[in-house]
């Protein structure tokens, strides 16, 4: 087995032994979907969501929750704690570069994100008859760009923070507005129009996912803005990142 596979396997075991983040990314959004979907009023068409049920319009916000949990809560906490505890430095004294540890963590967190979103789509379709994304490619593109942008923000927080706890605090600066504009705290159809409009361009791009899911497809401008955020946040994280 090569070292990256070995490190990823070990890190996976660790992630499953302290499963807070895996549960937050995988189980929490799905549980919210099931819980809210159990309320009959939410399963009816509302005047705020013409042509669809309130629940259908709200699923993309659960995708936002999944991405934000893993990218802005899990990643910053884990990476900054590894630096704080000297684990990255310890790796640097071995023949293996600590970047492999970072890559292993990204693999795990992205995998949980994908699984979480997959579970949302599956449960939505099986339990509530919510059709899958109408424009799968556009949805996939928005998801990939949005996830990259959010994980980039998370890595920036992990870069500038001295401790795992501090990283969580710094990530909150991005986490709270992203959750708000993403319609996690209050469903987007209930938000003021201007907030909805801004939300269309805030990563991870809830509007692009909505449009690809139930509308006429993700708009090029939305995707371009998401791509800019993705490149910008990753470049900034790479510049800011410290191994110790």
């Amino acid at each position: 087995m090569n070292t990256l596979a070995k490190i990823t396997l070990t890190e996976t075991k660790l992630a499953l032994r302290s499963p807070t983040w895996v549960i937050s990314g995988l189980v929490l959004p799905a549980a919210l979907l099931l819980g809210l979907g159990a309320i009959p009023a939410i399963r009816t068409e509302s005047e705020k969501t013409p042509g669809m049920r309130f629940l259908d319009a709200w699923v993309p916000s659960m995708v936002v929750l999944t991405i934000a949990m893993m990218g802005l809560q899990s990643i910053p906490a884990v990476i900054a704690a590894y630096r704080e505890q000297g684990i990255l430095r310890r790796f640097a004294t071995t023949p293996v570069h600590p970047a492999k540890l970072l890559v292993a963590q990204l693999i795990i967190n992205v995998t949980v994100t994908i699984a979480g979103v997959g579970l949302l789509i599956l449960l939505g379709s099986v339990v509530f008859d919510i059709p899958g994304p109408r424009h799968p490619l556009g949805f996939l593109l928005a998801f990939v760009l949005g996830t990259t942008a959010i994980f980039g923000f998370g890595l920036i927080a992990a870069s500038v923070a001295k401790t795992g706890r501090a990283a969580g605090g710094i990530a909150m600066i991005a986490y709270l507005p992203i959750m708000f504009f993403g319609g996690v705290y209050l469903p987007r159809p209930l938000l003021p129009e201007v907030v909805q409009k801004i939300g269309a361009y805030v990563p991870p791009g809830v509007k692009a996912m909505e449009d690809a899911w139930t509308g006429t497809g993700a708009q090029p401008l939305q995707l371009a803005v998401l791509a800019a955020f993705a490149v910008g946040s990753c470049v900034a994280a790479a510049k800011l990142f410290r191994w110790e």
Partner: protein
Amino acid sequence: MPLIEVTNLRKTYGEHVAVDDVSFHVEQGEIFGILGTNGAGKTTTVECLQGLRTPDSGSISVLGLDPKADHTALRQRLGSQLQESRLPEKLKVHEALDLYASFYTNPADPADLLAKLGLTGQRNKYFGKLSGGQKQRVSIALALIGRPEVAVLDELTTGLDPHARRDTWKLVEAVRETGVTVLLVTHFMDEAERLCDRLAIFDAGRVVAAGTPLELRDRTGKTTLDDAFVTLTGRD
């Protein structure tokens, strides 16, 4: 030719001069001590040896290699135990050893190493559940897992109780018996006196004296290394 040769090493962090014109050498098979108070420049010097930091000036040769230019080759042959470096709480002892063993081309047998360090009974325990002495022994095991020719042990016994400290000292001597050269960083005089064949006393980023513990005591006319240290660092 010495195994480690440090010549006129200098390292600054901004305005602060951490290491200033440090020179010393370490012979094969000895336990060499780097002794000094906190902030004396011990860890910075060792980090330059490990290739973790780039010196401002001066030269370092470890096993005939340049720690920065030849870091890949050196890391196969130099084992490190770092000050204030932990492992994940929920990592089991044998998993840590298996993982680190996979980093080296010719690693030691993890089970064998655990037995030598008296950790066989702990192999399935989480790192976070170990006592301070056991954690240090795991740390030593990880420093030795790649069958290094040189082992750097930084503040090995800080925070350990007297029994655990003495057990750890015996381990360091046992490591040397196997032919590994040991570079021991410490601020404990008794530890340096007990373990080191030779040592360099660091103060404010400089080496103020070097020699065997006996030589340093004789030079200062003191009966303990503790007193000799106080004299040599000019705070008598």
